[in-house]
């Protein structure tokens, strides 16, 4: 176990390409939720890149560049972990926000090369939010330890999405 931790620490510390390198197989997670709230109101919340307070996992959102393409934010989890993210494209008409993680410790989120889109479709009464992403597992070589496997990566992201979308629904439906 100690050996493994040392090996992991070395990997993270010294691999010059840790943020870019990846295992051979990209994973995908798609989560959806129906919310009884107007589509514009939902978009107002999820389309604001600089405020992730609707998600229970995050304590703080700090950033720059607003909602422009290329804008940045740093999310701090309630455990103190940091996730650095950047807008790839924000489409106000399609109500879709695409962004990527530019830097994260695999101990915070066990993924690499993460890119995501959160979007909403619907009417003045009802909306469907979709949160989807593509990423590689945290371990960039063959034979990953279980906590950095494909399954661990999918499980972690699925957990983030499900808890977040559940909280979003509660917030928007409760605040009518």
């Amino acid at each position, binding site marked *: 176990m100690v050996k493994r931790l040392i090996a992991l620490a070395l990997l993270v510390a010294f691999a010059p390409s840790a943020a870019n*390198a990846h295992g*051979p*197989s*990209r994973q*995908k997670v798609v989560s959806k939720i129906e919310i009884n709230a107007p589509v514009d109101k939902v978009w107002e919340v999820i389309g604001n890149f600089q405020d992730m307070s609707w998600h229970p996992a995050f304590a703080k959102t700090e950033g720059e560049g607003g909602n422009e393409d290329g804008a940045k934010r740093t999310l701090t989890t309630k455990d103190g972990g940091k996730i650095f993210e950047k807008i*790839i494209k924000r489409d106000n008409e399609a109500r879709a926000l695409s962004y*990527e993680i530019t830097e994260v410790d695999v101990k915070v989120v066990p993924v690499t090369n993460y*890119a995501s889109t959160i979007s909403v479709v619907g009417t003045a009464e009802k909306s469907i939010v979709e949160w989807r992403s593509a990423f590689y597992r945290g371990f960039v070589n*063959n034979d990953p330890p279980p906590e950095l496997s494909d399954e661990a990566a999918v499980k972690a992201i699925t957990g983030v999405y499900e808890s977040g979308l559940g909280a979003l629904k509660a917030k928007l439906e409760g605040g009518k």
Partner: protein
Amino acid sequence: MHSSRTEFATAWPCAGQFSFVRRCTLLIVLLGPSLAAADEAFVVSQNAGRLSIVDVATMKIAAEIAIDGKPAGIALSPDGRRAYVTAPEGRAVVVIDAEKRAIEKTIDVGKGPLGITVNPIDGRIFVADWYEHKLYAIDPVRLEIMASVETGLSPSGVAVTGDGRLIVTADRDSNQVSLIDAKLFNVIATVATGERPFGVTIDAAGERAYTANVASDDVTIIDLNARKALATIKVGHRPYAVALSRQRAFVTDQHGETVSVFDTNSFDPVGKIAVGGFPEGIAADEAGRFIYVSCWDADRLERIDVETMKVNGTVDVPAGPRSFGAFLRKTSGLPPRGEP
């Protein structure tokens, strides 16, 4: 004899329900414009673990084959009778009989075989190993590894010149390409590229190589004779691979949901074509009519009309199509079995 056109041509003398003129018209319509076009696309779906063979005339799946080990890369033999698919997690190259639509053999290769190409002259199969930082050569008759050579770090894409003499690997984590003498199987030069070159494509004349640089969002154009970079062209976000058609380069922008196009003479941008999510493997037919794109997130193969620069056909395929390599197979004009 799998294309509907060929079957029609074989069957038509007995097709008595049509008038002669009608039959001729049909023949012209069916055979005429597409003789030189690609006939089948071999789409490799990594997440689903499937190879789908798409009839590109109808954009319908003609056959599917299950492949274990998270298949990703693809190449066809020069005679089109075989497909070779890399399975990085299976640590193998899977040999497919393209006519029988069946697995012929599975060859153990390295620790992370990904990029694959075939020498168009002698049929040798070249496989880049992402983890071992090596290029393997496989004998197409014995279907066994015959040699290997060290490349830069994490070679991903691999391509060969049309004369079969020079191999180029895109060494992703060394930000370079390696130029390898195909006969001696040694590295004769390296050329610096943009950051994280992934796919590499060589032009028909064998004069230039184009790498898609994932991290710097550009394409490096390499002069293979001078062994140096000619130009760096900005494209969309996270480019994956390049296809060449009619003096234009078509580049899949994974995170951009676009194919970026630029002129290979002037290097000027031509435009961006909207495609499905996470476009990855891309291939041009020989006739310069269509470009085919594997869209990983959309689970689709899309067909771009080179004339109109728009998607004019799509087909849903199993989950996670990557099709990393030259995945088009001609079914027309093949030599009879037994000829070299």
